């Protein structure tokens, strides 16, 4: 891409200095984590009580960390915007959690889980982090069982496993279709135990709106947050020795996604604006098995667990004329089991990005099924007839009963007798705040865990690996690395009247006042929907230079209109859900632009990022390792604002790109093949 006279690449961003992660110790990969834990400084138990840590988020990543740090004796403040920590979005995970236990003796090992995850991520993740994830995975299962998580068991009383997309071993532990719920309840109970013990203070219905960063240059430290009590509207200051963001992913930038309604980017975006680099924002996962959109009032999309692909077979009619027929009347010979056809060795179990794109392809060809949405049918069949014939209806009910019920309730159709219809939907975001091996962001003292960071899944996440990462970060990684920071970075005293605190508070108050004062014509949701359409159209399953440039223009226009024309009624000093949504959408409107810039600059296809310009002859993603084997970490720059006007609408200046080169010492770089 070309650089113009103002130093801007493509008129959009600047190149900055490369960054590196120096925290992982040298030596063989199997020894790095043990060494890091050993080298990390200790905090004397008597001193821990005097050290405070703020944890934003009570999902698996935040809940597990808060409980563990509480047990260790630190003073923890835990925040969530729901009315109870147990309602964090992790609760909705269905399918399962991976662990290299090799209980099935099918050749699994830490090495294989490591390899599968790096390959699944299309060679865009950091080896050292992924190896550690695989290494601690087994401990997670032990910990959860000890807490009373009721995983599925076999008749002998031992734990059962299933297999998930993108791998050929059975390493996924599950609790029917409610694995996330059961794991989160485990973490939540451990957290509540610490609340009772007095080590954790719990702040529910609180939303973090700003991070407090004190000091300049190398002396910068994250020292607290500004939060709004969502019930009283009060703006509160919370100070601490370190801050952890475990605030989940940003898939709701697409408006329609499988994420919970409240999932948002505000916590990480505010931190990004304060100096935390945002890595690989364009890496989004579109999940292949979701219930298709039914109408224009749709508020969210519902996932059907990927585990269904173990027994369900995916197909569309071979002939377009058959698309509106009753699927049961379409003869076997007239069906195209396209995944089994194209990928004989993985079949229906190919990774998510591939399954999604192929579904899009067959629908684009006009062979989709179900109602016409927009200008074509967006759906493919997921058929259990063979499984029911083979295993019996009871066995299928036992495995997937709750998912089938949910499908029936939403669509009004019975999946036991007629094939399900599914279509891809936005599900997970691999990108997130950049962190080093210690999970620390570019702001010292600000740590990021779970889906909120970028660390382990490269350009595509394998099924059942997000729960694994959230709990690995929360129970085992962060508690070990944060103590090194707490022990070695003594914080200077900070009071509520320090400039850093006063400034952060003022920003929050001004923004809130501004949102309420605009009193324009359009609702927050209408902006959110429009942004979602732009993102889905131009930064969704397939991206092109032309489309992305168009999207950037559209988003800028929409953002400017938002700050001029949004209507947020009600007051600041009360429960005001429109105000909450407005703040979140304002941040999505900035994030969306960065996602498009990131997608535009990455002129290769990898994992969930598919650039139309970069594909093989048969339409598979084509990576360019020589040019793009790096993490793109973006630094925020404030908008240029010469005439002193308020900068709310302008939002952001040209971001600066810092590259972290990915070197593969232990795994050989290859083009992925699932054929």
């Amino acid at each position, binding site marked *: 891409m070309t650089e113009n006279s103002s130093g801007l690449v493509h008129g959009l961003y600047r190149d900055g200095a490369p960054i590196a992660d120096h925290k992982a110790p040298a030596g063989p990969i199997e020894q790095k984590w043990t060494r890091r834990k050993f080298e990390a400084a200790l905090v004397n138990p008597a001193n821990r009580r005097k050290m405070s840590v703020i944890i934003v988020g009570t999902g698996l990543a935040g809940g597990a960390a808060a409980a*563990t740090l509480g047990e260790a004796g630190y003073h923890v403040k835990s925040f969530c915007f729901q009315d*109870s920590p147990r309602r964090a979005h992790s609760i909705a995970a269905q399918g399962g959690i991976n662990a290299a236990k090799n209980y099935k003796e099918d050749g699994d090992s830490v090495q294989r889980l490591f390899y599968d995850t790096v390959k699944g991520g299309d060679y865009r993740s950091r080896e050292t982090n992924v190896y550690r994830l695989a290494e601690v995975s087994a401990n997670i299962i032990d910990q959860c069982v*000890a807490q009373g998580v009721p995983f599925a068991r076999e008749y002998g009383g031992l734990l059962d496993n299933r297999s998930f997309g993108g791998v050929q071993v059975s390493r996924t532990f599950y609790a029917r279709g409610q694995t996330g719920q059961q794991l989160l309840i485990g973490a939540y109970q451990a957290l509540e135990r610490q609340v009772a013990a007095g080590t954790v203070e719990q702040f529910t219905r609180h939303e973090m709106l700003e991070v407090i960063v004190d000091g300049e240059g190398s002396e910068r430290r994250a020292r607290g947050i500004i939060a709004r009590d969502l019930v009283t509207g009060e703006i509160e200051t919370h100070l601490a020795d370190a801050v952890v963001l475990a605030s989940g992913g940003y898939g709701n930038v697409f408006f329609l996604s499988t994420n919970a309604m409240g999932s948002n980017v505000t916590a990480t975006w505010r931190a990004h604006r304060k100096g935390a680099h945002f890595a690989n924002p364009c890496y989004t996962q579109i999940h292949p098995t979701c219930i298709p959109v039914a109408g224009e009032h749709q508020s969210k999309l519902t996932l059907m667990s990927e585990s269904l692909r173990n027994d369900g077979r995916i197909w569309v009619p071979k002939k377009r004329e058959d698309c509106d027929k009753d699927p049961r009347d379409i003869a076997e010979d007239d069906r195209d089991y396209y995944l089994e056809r194209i990928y004989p060795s993985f079949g229906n179990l190919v990774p998510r990005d591939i399954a999604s794109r192929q579904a899009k392809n067959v629908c684009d060809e006009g062979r989709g099924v179900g109602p016409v949405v927009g200008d074509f049918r967006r759906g493919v069949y997921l058929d259990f007839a063979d499984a029911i014939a083979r295993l019996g209806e009871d066995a299928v009910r036992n495995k997937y009963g709750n998912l089938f019920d949910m499908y029936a309730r939403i669509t009004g159709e019975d999946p036991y007798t007629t094939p399900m219809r599914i279509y891809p939907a936005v599900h997970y975001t691999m990108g997130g705040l950049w962190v080093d091996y210690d999970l620390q962001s570019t702001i010292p003292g600000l740590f990021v865990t779970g889906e909120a960071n970028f660390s382990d899944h490269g350009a595509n996440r394998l099924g059942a690996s997000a729960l694994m990462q959230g709990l690995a970060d929360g129970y085992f990684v962060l508690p070990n690395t944060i103590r090194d920071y707490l022990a070695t970075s003594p914080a200077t005293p900070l009071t509520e009247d320090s400039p850093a605190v006063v400034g952060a508070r003022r920003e929050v108050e001004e923004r809130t006042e501004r949102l309420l004062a605009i009193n324009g014509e359009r609702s927050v949701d209408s902006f959110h929907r429009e942004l979602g359409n732009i993102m889905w159209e131009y930064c969704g399953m397939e991206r092109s230079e032309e489309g992305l440039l168009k999207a950037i223009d559209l988003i800028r226009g929409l953002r400017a209109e938002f700050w001029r024309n949004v*209507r947020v009624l009600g007051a600041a000093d009360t429960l005001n859900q429109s105000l909450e949504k407005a703040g979140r959408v304002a941040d999505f409107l900035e994030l969306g632009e960065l996602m498009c810039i990131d997608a535009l600059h990455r002129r290769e296809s990898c994992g969930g990022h598919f650039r139309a310009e970069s594909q093989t002859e048969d339409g598979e993603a084509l990576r360019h390792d020589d040019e793009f084997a790096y993490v793109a970490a973006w630094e925020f720059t404030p908008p240029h604002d010469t005439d002193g006007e308020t900068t709310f609408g302008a939002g952001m200046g040209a971001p600066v790109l810092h590259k972290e080169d990915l070197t593969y010492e232990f795994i050989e770089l290859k083009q992925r093949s699932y054929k």
Partner: protein
Amino acid sequence: MNLTLKIWRQTGPDDTGGLVTYRMSDISPDMSFLEMLDVLNEKLNANGEEPIAFDSDCREGICGMCGLMISGHAHGPERTTTCQLHMRSFKNGDTITVEPWRAEAFPIVRDLVVDRGGLDRIIQAGGYISANTGSAPDAHATPVPKDNADRAFMAAECIGCGACVAACPNASGMLFLGAKITHLGELPQGQPERDARVVSMVGQHDHEGFGGCTNVGACSQACPKGIPQDVISQLNKDLRTALKHGR
């Protein structure tokens, strides 16, 4: 379809509140109940009226955030969560009353939003197994018979929505409490704290102002996860045993 909605509006805990009537037309049967309320809120916003506050998050029936009394039934006419209720369960011309959960232990925050913090405090009183991170033995060290594991799972499916409390004429939280006692009591890992747990949790339940159980069974009927009433029998049994052990 066309509907008449009577919705509880209350600006805050100190306001007396009351039902306000809204008319809705052209509602699609494929919409969820909450999407129908979204449409109403968009309309209110356009007319300069403040939208109705109600809770929801996952909209998949698993987080337990949503919960409305719909024409006198907790979560409405079907056995599911409010977010999973669809308009096809109603008829053209219906009048639907929408109210918040009503219970002394669930004070109203605003409109249809209530404070369910009491449920968290019941868990704090002992609804856990004390197992510090890092201290766990191998997961296969203690096999759990499948029947026990399955019953534990059934009880652990509780989503903590509070429908059981809202449906009960005594506003009792015993189904919620019994579900947790049963979940942890079925597992070998839950045995060491079993007696202390039940005594402490029952004490907290009563302290929060939840009522007693008189075997009405409305709780289980309203439970979107179908948690059976026998978890309350289990609770009573565990409580008797604990008291016998001198707890």
